[in-house]
């Protein structure tokens, strides 16, 4: 969704967006609420926000018998550890076991092209809209920008009809759908970033006789790496965590359905198989979590630079 970049601190100003700021004035003046009550409240919120995930994590390593007979908090009194849930849910032979490894491969096959394609296409378009000169440029940009408010639900039914009548391969459907839905926000983010690049760079390159293709490859691309990174992380999390697009366009089987779709299915049909649901959920969480923790800085910058898709 659109947010207004001008109203938020610019990404460049925040050396470390998650850390406390280090300007002298700021650290001398405490603006926050202080005192013991405030600390207790903060810690309480932090606990409420962490405990559910922690409980899931602990449960996923407990034997089935324990999971169903006692709460996960008793684990610490009677530690009893197993990896059985994970081997079952990932590789189990029976169809009811989850077989998540296979679905995780599908998630990967869906996600990688569905991230790199829209990032490339959006960066071409953003470059043309930021530095090309043609009539109606602003209108094209406003048009693409405005498409951010169209919910993807508006496109699902006709798009499925088109894919069905043209017999588009399943993975291709998902890639195309994700690519289309990512473009408005992608063009917006990258255009914001590119239009702030100094004009002199372009003029100097043009004087030296460089064409658009060269300028894009040799000058713009290296400069926009941070913006590309934050867009790629957004899109990665979006696609990996997506359920709706998968439900509509994948065939729902082990051949193409992503891990989220399988998990949602398990939660519906085997809602009390906690050994499967907890370990399965953790498998699906762990990949985005690693990406997120490793690249959190880029993610937060992208967020503050003004956009979250919906």
């Amino acid at each position, binding site marked *: 969704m659109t947010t207004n970049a001008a109203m938020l601190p610019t990404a460049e100003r925040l050396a470390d967006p998650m850390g406390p700021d280090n300007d002298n004035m700021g650290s001398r003046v405490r603006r926050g609420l202080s005192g013991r009550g405030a600390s207790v409240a903060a810690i309480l919120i932090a606990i409420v926000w962490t405990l559910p995930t922690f409980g899931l994590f602990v449960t996923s390593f407990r034997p089935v018998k324990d999971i169903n007979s006692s709460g996960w908090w008793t684990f610490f009194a009677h530690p009893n550890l197993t990896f059985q849930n994970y081997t079952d849910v990932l590789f189990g032979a029976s169809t009811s076991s989850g077989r998540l490894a296979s679905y995780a491969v599908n998630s990967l096959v869906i996600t*990688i092209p569905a991230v790199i394609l829209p990032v490339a296409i959006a960066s071409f378009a953003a470059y043309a809209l930021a530095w090309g000169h043609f009539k109606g440029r602003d209108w*094209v940009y406003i048009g693409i920008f405005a498409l951010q408010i169209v919910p993807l639900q508006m496109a699902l039914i006709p798009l499925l009809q088109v894919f069905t009548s043209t017999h588009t391969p399943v993975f291709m459907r998902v890639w195309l759908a994700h690519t289309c839905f990512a473009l408005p926000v992608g063009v917006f983010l990258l255009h914001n970033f590119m239009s702030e690049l100094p004009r002199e760079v372009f003029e100097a390159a043009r004087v030296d006789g460089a064409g658009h293709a060269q300028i894009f490859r040799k000058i713009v691309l290296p400069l926009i790496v941070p913006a590309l990174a934050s867009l790629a992380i957004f899109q990665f999390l979006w696609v990996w965590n997506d359920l709706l697009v998968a439900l509509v366009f994948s065939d729902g089987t082990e051949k193409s359905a992503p891990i989220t779709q399988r998990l949602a299915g398990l939660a519906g049909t085997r809602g009390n198989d906690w050994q499967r649901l907890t370990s399965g959920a953790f498998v699906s969480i762990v990949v985005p979590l690693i990406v997120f923790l490793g690249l959190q800085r880029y993610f937060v910058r992208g967020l503050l630079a003004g956009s979250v898709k919906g």
Partner: protein
Amino acid sequence: MNFADQVPKLGTLLIGIAIFFAVVALVLLLVDRAPKRNRERWQIGFLLAPAVLLLLIGLVIPAIRTTILSFMNNDGTKFVGFDNFKWMFTTPDIRVVLRNTAMWVILGPLVATSVGLVYAVLVDKTKFEKLAKSLIFLPMAISFVGAGIIWKFVYAGRVGKNEIGLLNQLVIAAHGTPWAWTVRAPWNTLFLIVVMVWIQAGFATVVLSAAIKGIPADTVEAARIDGANSWQMFWQITVPSIRPALVVVVVTISIATLKVFDIVRAMTGGNFDTSVVANEMYNQSFRYNESGHGAALALLLFLLVLPIVFYQVRAIRQRREI
């Protein structure tokens, strides 16, 4: 997992990556070899074409078609006027869906933003600020499906056996009676909204925290010298100073909440009167093949997004005029 089954998929992945390289190479090549006459225009055209074409085929035309479908009968063969919308507002089940969506959109953004704001203020300039913000931010990386399962487990309830759900255990510890959190309507919708709040509060915290750090230090110092206490500081300095960021956060979360789908799907499947517009849209369109109903619900989602966006645009305008 049978490894042999995975090989064709990896082949497909390679095809996907090959498409990426082909698109990039083709666009750059065309731009490089653009005709000399009107060169600039050709080059811009080649750069823009993939995005514009995909948006037209994948978003603009389908959205127009959905709008038309919402005035057609369920197999899209006959014009029926506003019948699908009449159906929406007169069918009791769908009215429950609309009521639930209203609950989501009112409570979700409000509570998530409040929690995020309070937390941002509480941890501002403390020693553990970075860690504290990371903790509340972490759910942003988790899928709605994963979050749904995490909370389904918190809400788990079992009659007459040891409780394994954290919440019922806490209720018992407080000498209360265990409760079927996700089953009893209309309260169950509230407990599903909690999951959305849990995911979005971190977003609110991070954006608002950045805004708080942007408040000029002399403003704060002046208020301190005037003897403002923490409470007054919060309401008279912090909140007015970060108003634009607050609008952004509320609007963003509102739109995400309006379209919520996965949480309901994973936790209750829309049963027990918990369904929302996006979930019903999916069911009508793709399970019951009632494309007229589905399209009407999709259009409703779009129409509900509009006032939120207008509100934001107005807020930005007012800001500029000051």
